[in-house]
């Protein structure tokens, strides 16, 4: 589903990604851990072209992200094409980024109606089902500010799902939450994984990575230091850097 080969990204002279190689198969859940500044969030944002990569190849479903190749030449995609691809990838942010001027339901139906040109009836029907699925059926008409952090993040997940994405990206979805609210969000994500959604999750929740993840990737300094089955990496890290990171967070 997602394939990265030697992906590089610089911000000016700062090399944030220094050659990332990985592959995520359909229905897989990949968790990425690592210290802050290691490039995990940047990599996630490259996948839906919120950041442009500088070198290497990154493809989703066999198609390059942000570019098209014809013969030897690589062409940048036009805005409309980029938007079309983004619409197939759901993203959940650390700070939720719900639209504060819209109710929960309006947050969910906005993109399906405007981007996918669905009828309001169809979009609302699915939105209600999704809000019910994340346990917020009774908050349909609440504005984001009337919701707790955990509730907001669950709405944000439902909003991404409303576009019926083939892939979900989670950028530290529980990092901004009070500890007692983390569980409700992780429960929703766990259920989503069990339903077979392909997911890439940047997280600090080691427990979640161990139980739900099919692969665990440890990043540091813009490279993948270690990757493998979560239980193997966590129980028996091969690299010194992985060991020292895990000893601090476990």
């Amino acid at each position, binding site marked *: 589903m997602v394939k990265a080969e030697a992906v590089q990204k610089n911000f000016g002279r700062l090399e944030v990604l220094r050659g990332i190689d990985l592959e995520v198969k359909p229905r897989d859940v990949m968790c990425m851990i690592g210290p802050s500044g290691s490039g995990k969030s940047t990599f996630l944002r490259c996948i*839906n072209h*919120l950041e442009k990569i500088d070198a290497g190849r990154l493809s989703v479903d066999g198609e390059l992200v942000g570019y098209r190749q014809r013969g030897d030449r690589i062409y940048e995609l036009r*805005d*409309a094409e980029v*938007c*079309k*691809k*983004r*619409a*197939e*990838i*759901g*993203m959940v*942010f650390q*700070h939720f*980024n*719900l*639209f*504060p*001027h*819209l*109710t929960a339901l309006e947050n969910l139906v*906005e*993109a399906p109606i*405007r*981007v*996918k040109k669905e009828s309001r009836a169809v979009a609302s029907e699915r939105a209600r089902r999704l809000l019910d699925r994340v346990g917020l059926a*009774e*908050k349909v*008409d*609440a*504005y*984001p*500010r*009337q*919701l*707790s*952090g955990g*509730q907001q993040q669950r709405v*944000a997940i439902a*909003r*991404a799902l409303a*576009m019926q994405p083939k892939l979900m990206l989670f950028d530290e979805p529980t990092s901004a939450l009070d500890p007692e609210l983390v569980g409700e969000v992780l429960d929703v994500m766990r259920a989503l994984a069990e339903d077979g959604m392909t997911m890439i999750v940047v997280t600090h929740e080691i427990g979640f990575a161990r139980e739900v993840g099919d692969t665990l990737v440890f990043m540091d300094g813009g490279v993948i230091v270690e990757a493998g089955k979560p239980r193997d990496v966590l129980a028996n890290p091969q690299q010194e850097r992985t060991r020292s990171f895990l000893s601090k967070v476990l």
Partner: protein
Amino acid sequence: MADAVGVRPAAIKAVPVRHPGRWVAAIVVLAIAVYVLYTIGAAIGNDRTVLGPHTGWLVVQRFLFNGLIFRGILVTLELTVLAMAVGIILGAILAVMRLSANPVMSWVSWLYIWFFRGTPVLVQIFFWFNINLVVKSIDIGIPFTSLWLHGDTNKLIPPFMAALLGLGLNEAAYMAEIVRAGIISVEHGQTEAAQALGMDRGLVMRRIVLPQAMRVIIPPTGNETISMLKTTSLAFGAGVTELFTRQQQIATATYDVLELLIVASIWYVVMTSILTVGQYYIERRFGRGSTRQQPLTPLQRFRRMLFTFHAPLPPAVVQAGPAVPGSEHR
């Protein structure tokens, strides 16, 4: 635990600190205000006017509902609404141009704002009023074809149009800065979240950024509208028969200068007061979602006050209170 709370200390009953200075200051200020108002009021009352001696206030009363004054008010309102419409639409376009990734757009917008903010409105009104001295006709069309529209500057820009152009184009420069401030006040995460859902630039701006920017844009825009209502009096310079010109025309005929200025002032105050109320309700509308609960309108507060004075809170009122869904959190 409950036992420990058993004995509650008595509430403190202390003698409050006196503030004699506040009383003295209040009395002095009130005395000065009353004196000034009374002196001016009495002087106008004693003024000798067209109606005879001691008839100043009678003249104010008489011309307050004069037909010419009403026609002037109508023109003032027209000018205000149209100039603000030009200002807001052109201002929004200039703001988007200013934030555009295209450097030419951004610079053109910057130059426009720089120029129109840098010159007095009165100069601009006079400029449009006198443009026919140098530009005889305005022709718009497609080069190398016969598709051309021709217009005489004299006919295209009568006094009203000159005032409208002067006020509107000047306002656009200020509105551009207000709209720009509103747009950049919206958190970048909002744009990213919208983009991640596949929305294109136009959609993100129209559906996500601008509605949120409105909360920042509306209060100063209300301010600008109130300011515009009064600035339209500069159209006097172009001979537009708005409120100020009308009172001036009457005053030159009757010599009751101060009385007619008071008439005009009363109407300006009435109109700005109405605008202030309108602004309150528009702000409330665009504030949706920014607070947990919509604040009550003064009317609602008044009604509730009546209820609570007469009877214990009716159930409807209790419900509308803190029981907003989700408000139990945080």
